[in-house]
């Protein structure tokens, strides 16, 4: 198999794994969000994400490696912080959008993020330039199919009652704003990867931007530290589940980063947007959320799922042809020239090599301490967690956990073998 083909397969697999784990992230939060402020939900998840995002890169590559990578491409630090800020604001907007117009209207609107990302990929990073008509049809058609299928799922699974007419405009604005923000968040992602940065280094800084922005928003909208602390204290029995959701989200996002690196954002984002399918599987099979649905709704869900799978398959077969890869290379050369990067090293990193590893960055004892501390936080929160009598389907719970872990293992093993997590 050629290098280009290997990297395409790897990127597609990472996109699929991203969908699975971003979808799984919804599961722990499903039963604990009632009565908690949207800002506190977002903040708690972001703190969970922060803990995981500092731990996973440290465990896999070590702080020395991450430091070396950041030092070599220090110009990408503000980009990563900007991306984290975009994520935090977008995530908060989605909470308001769901509250004001319901998931069935909000989701299709913010799901436009894949089309926004595709546009930026084409405009700024030469994605799809030089691709033939059939690649365009596969990528654009596949992206639209995934977005359309997700809309059908959202429509069929949502309730349509109790919307206040005066809040509709605000809800639509929030959902469209979230789509624009998330779609534009991929600009820094792609910028980092065509500059040869390791995704694990990028997320380490990304999460700082996320935490600073989310803390500022929560403080501003809750009237200061005191009221916010009270809200968090009230939510403490739910914090473990929110942190766990954040942890699953980190795993999904890491795969999304690798997908953005190896197949670009135009192909990577639609694939990771299949998370809606996984979220539905968790809701329907484990939590029994769809038990009372009408046959029409069940038909819509089946049709929506089939359309999404069709879209993902179409993108999976849309490997970038030589002419498009040459356009990608031009974008990479532009970054190297602008920021004085070593072209050979960046090219090697983009082909799945790990030039930084040759410098043998040292592992230190306190990296184990960071991992132990993170595990300790999770154990402590678990001891505070409210044990609710959940009506779960244990058999499906096991099936979905095993399926998610299998996808994680396959994607992580291939990433390790082919790129050493570069």
């Amino acid at each position, binding site marked *: 198999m050629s290098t280009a083909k290997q990297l395409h397969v790897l990127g597609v697999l990472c996109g699929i794994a991203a969908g699975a784990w971003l979808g799984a992230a919804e599961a722990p939060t499903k039963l604990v969000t009632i009565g908690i402020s949207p800002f506190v939900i977002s903040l708690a998840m972001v703190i969970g994400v922060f803990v995981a995002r500092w731990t996973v890169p440290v465990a896999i590559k070590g702080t020395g490696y991450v430091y070396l990578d950041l030092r070599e491409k*220090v*110009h990408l630090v*503000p*980009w990563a912080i*900007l*991306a984290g*800020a*975009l994520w935090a*604001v*977008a995530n*908060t*907007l989605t909470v*308001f959008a769901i509250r*004001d117009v319901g998931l069935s209207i909000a989701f299709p609107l913010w799901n436009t993020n894949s089309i926004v990302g595709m546009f*930026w990929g084409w405009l*700024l990073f030469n994605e799809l330039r030089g691709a033939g008509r059939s690649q365009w049809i596969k990528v654009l058609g596949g992206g639209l199919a995934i977005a359309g299928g997700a809309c059908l799922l959202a429509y069929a699974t949502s309730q349509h009652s109790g919307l206040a007419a005066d*809040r509709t405009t*605000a*809800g639509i*604005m*929030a959902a469209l*704003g*979230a789509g*624009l*923000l998330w779609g*534009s*968040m991929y*600009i*820094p992602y792609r*910028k980092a990867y065509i500059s040869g940065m390791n995704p694990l280094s990028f997320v380490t800084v990304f999460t700082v931007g996320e935490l600073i922005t989310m803390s500022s*928003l929560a403080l501003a*909208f809750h009237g200061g530290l005191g009221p916010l602390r009270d809200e968090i204290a009230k939510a403490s029995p739910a914090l473990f589940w929110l942190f766990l959701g954040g942890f699953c989200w980190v795993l999904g996002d890491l795969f999304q980063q690798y997908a953005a690196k190896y197949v670009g954002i135009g192909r990577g984002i639609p694939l990771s947007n299949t998370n809606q399918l996984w979220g539905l599987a968790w809701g329907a099979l484990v939590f029994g959320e769809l038990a009372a649905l009408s046959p029409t709704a069940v038909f819509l869900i089946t049709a929506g799922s089939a359309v999404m799978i069709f879209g993902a398959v179409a993108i999976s077969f849309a490997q970038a042809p030589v002419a498009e890869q040459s356009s990608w290379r031009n974008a990479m050369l532009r970054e190297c020239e*602008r*920021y*004085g990067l070593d072209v050979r090293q960046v090219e090697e990193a983009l082909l799945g090599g790990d030039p930084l590893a040759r410098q043998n960055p040292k592992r230190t004892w306190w990296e184990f301490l960071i991992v132990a501390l993170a595990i300790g936080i999770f154990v402590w929160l678990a001891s505070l967690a409210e044990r609710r009598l959940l009506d779960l389907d244990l058999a499906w719970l096991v099936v979905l956990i095993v399926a998610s872990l299998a996808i994680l293992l396959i994607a992580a093993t291939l990433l390790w073998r082919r790129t050493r997590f570069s």
Partner: protein
Amino acid sequence: MKRSLPRLVLSDPHFWIPFAVLLFGIAVLVTITKGA
């Protein structure tokens, strides 16, 4: 002469696209929460 890093980043036209989008998002958030 080489330009300093902040100047390089700030003179990169790509940087201002996500930055403007972020400001827009914050403005939307402030507007909808004020109206709530």
